[in-house]
């Protein structure tokens, strides 16, 4: 059984709708029939399947719809038409430290963030040691997170999301944070998870990173599926298209 199944997914955003925030604007636009103008399809009729244990990259230019795709898979958004089926636990690495409360300490945030991912206190207690070890934050474990640097927050976020068990790891351009040493560690951890059977879904512009981590790549261009196959092949086609100036 596929672990992720995406069938004929289209995602429509209403550009005008997003600006309508007050009752007055809403009424005015309703009267002028402007409410439902400016439809924008971020994704159109995308279908693919991902099997357990695969490492798949979503590539494409800025605004091509790859992050939208990742959010649909993570269950953050619902597609306008079509369906997304996921058979497993997702650890979302969409933005590191998204669930942190800046007034709380690292220790308290580990439990809060764990709960956001659906894990209880006892489970997080078991993994607490490893999480702080990996993030190398023992010196600051009882300091409020608002005093952390952005690199430290990212380290803690990555450490929590990858320490807890998950069937799917969904990453969105996160390895660009942290210093060189930590990036190396992250790569190692991800490769380790891959060999342990975790499915990896990776969004990036960095073609070298993609080739290094993923075996398969899916190329999304202006919301359409443009390529799906071995990472090497799809990446080369993508680079060639960019060079042609498309």
């Amino acid at each position: 059984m596929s672990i992720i199944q995406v069938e004929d997914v289209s995602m429509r955003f209403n550009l005008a709708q997003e600006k309508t925030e007050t009752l007055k604007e809403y009424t005015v636009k309703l009267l002028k029939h402007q409410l439902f103008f400016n439809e924008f399809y971020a994704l159109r009729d995308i279908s693919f399947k991902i099997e357990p244990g695969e490492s798949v990259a979503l590539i494409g230019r800025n605004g091509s719809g790859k992050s939208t795709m990742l959010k649909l898979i993570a269950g953050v958004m619902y597609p306008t038409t079509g369906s997304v089926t996921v058979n497993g636990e997702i650890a979302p690495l969409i933005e590191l430290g998204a669930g942190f409360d800046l007034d709380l300490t690292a220790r308290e945030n580990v439990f809060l963030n764990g709960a956001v991912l659906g894990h209880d206190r006892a489970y997080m207690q078991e993994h607490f040691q490893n999480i702080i070890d990996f993030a190398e934050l023992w010196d600051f474990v009882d300091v409020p997170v608002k005093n952390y640097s952005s690199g430290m927050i990212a380290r803690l976020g990555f450490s929590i999301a990858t320490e807890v068990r998950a069937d799917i790891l969904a990453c969105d351009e996160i390895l660009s944070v942290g210093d060189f040493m930590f990036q190396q560690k992250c790569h190692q951890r991800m490769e380790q998870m891959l060999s342990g059977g975790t499915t990896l879904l990776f969004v990036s512009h960095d073609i070298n990173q993609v080739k290094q981590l993923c075996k398969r790549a899916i190329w999304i261009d202006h919301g359409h599926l443009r390529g799906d196959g071995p990472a090497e092949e799809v990446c080369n086609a993508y680079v060639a298209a960019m060079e042609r100036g498309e």
Partner: protein
Amino acid sequence: MQKSTGQLHNSWHNFSKYRPLIRELVTRDLKVKYRRSVLGYMWSILNPLLMMLLQTLVFSYMFRFDIPNFPLYLICGNTLFNFFNESTNMGMGSVLGNASLIKKVYVPKFIFPISRVVSSFVNLLFSLAAILLVMLITRSPFYWTILLVWAPLLLLLAFCCGMAVLLSALAVYFRDLQYLYGILTMAWMYATPLFYPISALPPFMVPVIKLNPLYHYINCMRCLVMYGTLPGPNTWIACVGSAVVMMGVGLAAFRKLQRNFILYL
């Protein structure tokens, strides 16, 4: 197993899986609330006491109503009304306030308003100490009925949960609600017999006030704490009925509206 479309999530499974999250969010709220204040949780007791003292002075010397043990009468009503006011207000902004999280991680969204209401409820439990203190100071007799006080409190909790869930969903679509609601609660406060007895109203107003669910919760509380009587069946029906209806309406509306939250956050 998780499905984004087609089938609806199994709500109960979701609820039990994310129960630790409610606990963590409540702990967070309580920790952050009084962090860095010198007296900390004491404020949950001190605040209603000071408020009651002030209002007792105002209403004993400026506008007089003949109510026996006015301080206790006041604090019973105020404690419940403040809980209602605080929990629904905070609950209303909770989905908007957690937008950054909702945009990035899948979390059942009703958790946010519910956890805010539960935090306020914990606060309310602290405030009960203030009521006890007032009873001791005013030498008010203790009746056995005070042991039943959990009933109106839990029913009010359910009512506020429903209300907060509803408001939090509506506020996503119409942000003006946040400003409008302040006025609404003000009107609601005057329509609730907090510092006046219902008998002081002209007769035609009485049935109107009885449409106000908060009147029944507060009345029930006062019967149990102050008068040592069991409230009549009408009061119980009103309390249970409004809690059930509010929960039902709130959850149903939230379920329908939450699908498109992300497009408006």
